[in-house]
């Protein structure tokens, strides 16, 4: 079994209202020195059997247009063999 983790983050120029709200709360709750917070999504995908090149290619494709919206988000994909 292989584990693939896909982090999806809003592109840096895109407004992140959630991140802003979290930043506000962190500061209000006593964390003084926060300069920026961005909130993203994380997908932990468990794949049966071994991870071959073809599957990986497919995963990249899906990460780039299903898991993330390329118009506003970037993704990062890493394999964590379990």
């Amino acid at each position: 079994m292989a584990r693939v983790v896909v982090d999806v983050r809003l592109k840096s120029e895109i407004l992140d209202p959630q991140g802003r709200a979290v930043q506000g709360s962190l500061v209000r709750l006593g964390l003084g020195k926060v300069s920026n917070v961005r909130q993203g999504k994380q997908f932990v995908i468990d794949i049966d059997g071994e991870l071959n090149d073809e599957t990986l290619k497919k995963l990249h494709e899906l990460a780039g247009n299903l898991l993330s919206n390329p118009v506003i988000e970037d993704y990062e994909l890493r394999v964590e063999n379990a």
Partner: protein
Amino acid sequence: MSEISGARIGVVTFPGSLDDRDAARAVQIAGGTSVELWHGDANLHDVDAVILPGGFSYGDYLRCGAIARFAPVMEKLVVAANGGLPVFGICNGFQILCESHLLPGALIRNDHQHFVCRDQKLRIENNTSMWTKDFSVGQEIVVPLKNGEGGYIADEKTLDALEAEGRVIARYLDVNPNGSRRDIAGISNERGNVVGLMPHPEHAVDALTGPTTDGLPFFTSVLSSLLAGVK
């Protein structure tokens, strides 16, 4: 306690609260006096009971109710609730009560992933809480439901305890609109003064604007509970 005929029910407005006016209107139709409470004001202004209304407090960013829980008014409210003050959380208010650990469990994204607004059938399961006294057990009612994150979850042990102690106050009938465990629509704390409900009884108090008037007893219940408490 103020005079019961005009029991004062506080309705808290957080930034992003939406159904606060509706909750206040329901209180008045039920015969109470509504009192506006403000999230940033750490003062309950001597009200006899409190409603945490529906809406998207703080945009529901992070998690529904997660940020509201830290509002100044909540510190006072948690203490008062633990001391027996009747508190009713509707939808977002229910989420805030769970986040504040006044009620067990949590509310997560609907299983079908969509926001849903519908006229929902419920069965009342408990008429001993301060907010359900005026119902009869087994009574079927229809009130609006509208949420994106209304799936009630808790671990099995907690669910079993809720059932055993009669703390499930209402269950979804016909359809489970959000994937809630054991069709749970609302629960109360052990003492029965704190109640959380996902559907919106405050939108069912006037036949002109709601599907029914089935929601009204939630608001009259607290008035009669307060009255009974005084006697």
